């Protein structure tokens, strides 16, 4: 018996793949035909439309109809696995997307000219007692020609860009597709997934109710058997699903919409705050591993999120953490000094020590060479950082809260849907509340990154002597005022004596708060690591220099190489600002690294020459002074016409202190015309120009007062923007005396 059994396996191994391949191809074709008959057999009137409403011919393409259908059934199955009988979950899911689109131009033809898809993927494990994991995708395309003739596309004309037994990827160039055609196509993914963790039954969808093309008819139909739990949100006034129960007990969720407009690009928007969408999650009842897999339907998503964070904190007790408290004590000469230190000071040291440990020491202790500006873009998961700092705060008996917030670049707090939608930060409570956020190495103590400002937050206040037990409340994260987010540019400008059509600019930039946008590109770790080390180590306790290892020497070489590239980054910063490459860039350097709240500003400087600011006009010279504020895109008529609120990155102040040396033998004309003062609810603009001694001084300052404006304020915002736009093209005359 055993022998026969072994022989069977051997035969399967020898002939199995071939037989399977042949059978597989036949099965695939048969299944493809069945699906095609079903999809094309659906004669829903919206998919029979052949004529567009008047005016639609001016659109690049029009989606006449589209639907997404999902049918899923998940059930338990007894399996023999892990040398024991156990229960696995088998999920059958069929996801069909069908779209009927009228192609009106070549751009749309290019968009729809090919379909790429994962034709089949088989990750089934086991020889006899198989755990299935198969996903097959079937496609169908038909073209409706302008004369009404229907042409079914032969999808076997596909090419396989991956062609392995268990992994096939297809690509089909749509034959016969022409401008003027209607293309009616579908993709149907058939999945059979078995697993022991119930994850195969989970699925998430984000349905954005709109497209780059107008949609005449839009449908969603999702059907699940009773084992599956569904959660969904309708954000930004997206309509509700119609929920029904089928005769077999399956739940269905359907939605039918018509005439969805196309999206249009606008300045300063936040898509998931301003456009309707539905986020949908289906999961198995017993799953607890995912964000919204709970049985308790009465629990809100936010409550679930809070619970998830609490569980994370509870779990974290098992891990080891840096003893920052002892480390902070070492900063001080005595325990007495430590106790006497103001809380703000202690917290600043804690934060900077954590940052040094995470972004400097951890990297330096690795065996590889991690240098270059790429290293500056490393990120730490916020909730891990929060957990580690919270441990220390708890240990130091500091009154603090954990804040959970949804960044303003994603969904609102009320619409958070997935675990990753929320970020965590710490609020230290005291006479003055201070914050710890963990965005990157350049984030400072008590700095709130712009994406969290003004947002509602869930406040988790730890209970006494209970690291992982919290009181819950709500708070609004403050908006950092415009005066603290600033970019100040100081420029000393002169016309070159030998060629007065060329200017020299000595430029120094100071950036603060959210306007510190250039740190990551203009510095390397060795530039700011010593500064960060200085502010976390007491003066008399500086560590001795460590002998350079072979790896250390390699890092030094790599750093020297990376430093050569910084020159290009300085040039690129200037090119980006002025729209032309600088010439003869010298004296470029970072003047203040801005790595800690001890010295929060980032500063850099450089001296360079540029053409195209000065035009010779007879004996005189026209100086395009307004161009010194850099490239400024004036608002065009399309952008002026706005129908949605304004999500700006942050409240901010941008200022320029410009000194232009008046060439000897010349006088300046047109100075008074530069002066301008504007002030309204959305901001201010101040331009003060005067000639003092041999220099024309222009002080330009514009402030955007808020990070958000209601649509009604858009005209006021335009006043400020137009004011600075007008200045950007203003000129003065250097007239020969």
């Amino acid at each position, binding site marked *: 018996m055993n022998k026969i059994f072994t022989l069977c396996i051997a035969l399967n191994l020898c002939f199995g793949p071939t037989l399977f391949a042949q059978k597989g191809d036949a099965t695939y074709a048969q299944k493809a035909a069945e699906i095609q008959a079903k999809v094309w057999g659906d004669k829903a009137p919206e998919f029979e439309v052949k004529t567009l409403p008047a005016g639609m011919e001016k659109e690049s393409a029009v989606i006449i109809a589209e639907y997404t259908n999902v049918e899923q059934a998940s059930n338990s199955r007894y399996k023999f696995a892990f040398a024991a009988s156990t229960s696995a979950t088998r999920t059958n899911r069929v996801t069909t997307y069908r779209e009927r689109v009228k192609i009106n131009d070549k751009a749309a033809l290019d968009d729809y000219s090919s379909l790429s898809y994962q034709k089949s993927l088989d990750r089934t494990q086991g020889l006899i007692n198989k755990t299935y994991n198969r996903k097959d995708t079937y496609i169908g395309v038909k073209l409706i020609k302008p004369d009404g003739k229907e042409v079914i596309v032969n999808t076997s004309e596909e090419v396989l860009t991956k062609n392995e037994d268990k992994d096939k990827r297809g690509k089909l160039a749509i034959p016969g597709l022409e401008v003027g055609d209607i293309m009616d196509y579908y993709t149907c993914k058939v999945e059979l997934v078995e697993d022991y963790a119930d994850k195969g039954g989970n699925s998430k969808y984000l349905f954005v109710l709109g497209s780059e093309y107008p949609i005449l008819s839009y449908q969603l139909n999702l059907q699940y058997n009773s084992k599956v739990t569904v959660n969904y949100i309708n954000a930004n006034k997206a309509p509700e699903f119609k929920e029904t129960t089928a005769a077999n007990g399956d739940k269905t969720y359907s939605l039918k919409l018509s005439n969805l407009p196309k999206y249009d690009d606008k300045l300063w928007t936040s898509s998931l705050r301003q456009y309707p969408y539905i986020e949908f999650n289906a999961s198995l009842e017993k799953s607890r591993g995912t964000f919204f897999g709970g049985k308790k339907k009465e629990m809100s998503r936010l409550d679930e999120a809070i619970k998830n964070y609490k569980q994370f904190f509870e779990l974290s007790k098992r891990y080891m953490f840096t003893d920052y408290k002892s480390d902070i004590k070492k900063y001080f000469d005595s325990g007495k000094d430590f106790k006497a230190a103001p809380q703000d000071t202690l917290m600043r040291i804690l934060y900077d020590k954590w940052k040094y440990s995470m972004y400097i020491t951890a990297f330096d202790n690795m065996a590889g060479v991690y*240098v270059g500006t790429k290293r500056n873009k490393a*990120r*730490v998961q916020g909730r*891990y950082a929060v957990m580690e700092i919270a441990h220390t705060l708890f240990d130091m008996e500091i009154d603090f809260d954990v804040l959970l917030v949804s960044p303003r670049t994603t969904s609102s707090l009320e619409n958070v849907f997935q675990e990753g939608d929320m970020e965590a930060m710490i609020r230290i409570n005291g006479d003055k509340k201070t914050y710890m956020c963990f965005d990157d190495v350049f984030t400072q103590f008590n700095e709130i990154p712009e994406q969290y400002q003004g947002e509602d937050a869930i406040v988790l206040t730890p209970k006494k002597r209970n690291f992982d037990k919290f009181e819950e409340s709500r708070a609004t994260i403050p908006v950092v005022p415009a005066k603290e987010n600033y970019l100040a540019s100081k420029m000393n400008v002169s016309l070159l004596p030998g060629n007065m059509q060329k200017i020299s600019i000595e430029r120094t930039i100071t950036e603060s708060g959210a306007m510190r946008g250039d740190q990551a590109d203009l510095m390397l770790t060795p530039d700011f690591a010593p500064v960060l080390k200085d502010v976390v180590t007491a003066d008399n306790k500086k560590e001795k220099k460590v002998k350079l290892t*072979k790896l250390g020497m390699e890092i030094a070489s790599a750093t020297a190489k990376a430093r050569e590239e910084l020159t290009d980054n300085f040039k690129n910063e200037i090119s980006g600002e002025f729209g*032309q490459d600088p010439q003869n860039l010298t004296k470029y350097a970072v003047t203040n690294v801005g790595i800690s709240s001890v010295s929060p500003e980032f500063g850099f400087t450089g001296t360079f020459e540029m053409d195209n600011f000065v035009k010779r006009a007879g004996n005189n010279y026209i100086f395009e002074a307004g161009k010194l504020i850099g490239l400024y895109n004036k608002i065009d008529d399309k952008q002026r016409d706005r129908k949605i609120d304004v999500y700006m990155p942050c409240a901010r102040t941008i200022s320029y202190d410009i000194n232009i040396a008046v060439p000897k033998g010349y006088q300046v004309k047109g100075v008074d015309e530069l002066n301008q003062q504007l002030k309204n609810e959305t901001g201010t603009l101040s331009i003060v120009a005067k000639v003092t001694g041999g220099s024309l001084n222009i002080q330009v300052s514009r402030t955007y007062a808020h990070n958000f404006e209601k649509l009604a304020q858009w005209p006021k915002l335009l006043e400020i923007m137009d004011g600075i736009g007008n200045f950007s093209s203003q000129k003065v005359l250097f007239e020969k005396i």
Partner: protein
Amino acid sequence: MHKVLTAIATLLIICGFKSSATPKEKNISILSANDYYEFVYNKKTQMVEVKQKLSTSYYCNDFRVEIPISETYNDQVSIDNVDISVKNIKPEYSYYKDKDIFFSDERICYFRLPLEKKGATSTVTFEETVKDPKYFTSIFFSDDYKITHKEVVLRIPRWIKVELKEMNFVGYDITKTSKYDSGKDADIITYSINKLPAIESEANSPGPTYRVPHLFILTKSSNFNGTEVTYFNELKDQYGWYHQITKDIVNKKEVLKAKALDITKNTTTDMAKIKAVFYWMQKNIHYLAFENGMAGFAPEKADEVLRKNYGDCKGMAHLTKQLLCSLGFDARLCWIGTNHIAYDYSTPSLAVDNHMICALLYQGKTYFLDATETYIGFNEYAERIQNRQVLIEDGDKYILTRVPATTVTQNLDREKRLLAINGNDLQGTAEHLWKGEEKENILGNLNDTKIDKASEAFNKYLSNHNNDYVINNLVTSDVTDIDNDLKANYGVNFKNGVSHFGKDYYVDMDFRKEFTGSNIDTAERANDYWFYYKMNISRETELAIPVGYKVSSLPNGLSVQNDNYEFNIQYSNQGNKVLYKKTIVFKNPHLAKAKFVQWNNDIAKLTETYNQQLVLTAQ
């Protein structure tokens, strides 16, 4: 509390910071490379094969790094073995992907090779077989890294005739030695190469066959044990092979004729029919690159291209030919190497050509039709095929000729403006005309833009993306008409286009200032600079002098003339108007590195001339 473990801290960092290669040119070099090629006879397949063993030792000069290694293969070239000196590296094999190619059967073997510390050497050896010497066309000596020493050894039995052409050797330390192996009756040719710089990949560079030292391999014929095989001994052999592939393609002639008649139903003259077919092809058959085995050389059936509405260059040339033939015209397939390739048909090889077009022999003249150039007019030629040798089918024979070399007059970009001062604004009208490749460029961009955005996009182009330069009443010629020049007429209102100080108006007469800041960094640029095509830019602005004003200062003009380009700028005061005229002409779009300094000087002069303004003073 416990001290943190570095490993835990490391886990927290989720940036995906890889130990990837930072700039390679100095940190990595190839200490030694040994490439061995041997022509052998495969008795099983009864084919001559080329066995290759390519061994490269990479050296870490400064700091540890991983470098990407890749080798391509296909149906004609197999990778038989990969030996990597570093353990536990498993090469991946997949289709080669290129954004410009819809599908290619070219495959790639790739992996990341660690150089574990400064001074480390890692060696990779690929053993490969080229299954047919026709496909063994070149050996490039250079690499992405500088090479300290390389040896290229070819063992060529005397039963096969192979010509080695040494290309771009000048300026490099390359020596050749030959010896005869009497035992195997074979010549052993060795090239020793020292201190070879890395290949520099730069935009607008000539193709590698113009600049990289390499051997161009011409396999002529073989005679193994009395079995004679002729490869590409002469051009007739290469043509014979091409003709063999193309001559028996069976097309559905009735389908093609019906389509050709439909396309030309509103035409009466021969030329109108020819143009109708060519323009129909350009507008309706879109280019899609397929490189798949013999399909890389054989055109698809013309009726299939017609049915699919797409094709590669061969398919498009074939359909163009068959449509014209079905109307009774003498149309032929043509093989051509674009200007990306340094060779011509004097050296028959599969490396000589890379493109297929259609030739029309009509009333004693030959016209070339390349429908992959979507918006170029009939009898106009893109820079890439101009003056290139072209192999035209002619039954069992062939015709070798050249695509006409056109002059700059083909590619005109002309703008004429009539302006007057109104307050601080410049107002008036403009007319714009584009021809040849300039027209093709504009039409291509317009037609690739969504129709609901095309007008806005064209406005932005005409206004140089300056929102103060307002275009109004824009009227264009038919943007789908390829046969005629593209024209645009529009009103201009240039807000604050005039500066007013005291009694004077200051006017900038040039709005576009082409080539401002187009200096070439002579320290960085390694290769010649090739502009896309011959340019012929003409600008004319006529400004009405306001009543009561006179010209008090007329800017200086400019005249730069050399073999490559001409810059001419003139200002003139003609009664009550000022006329500004500018022409920028690129007669030869290939700017040699030796001319970069001159170019930079001339660009400085051009910029200086641009930075002048006309002064009008109240009388």
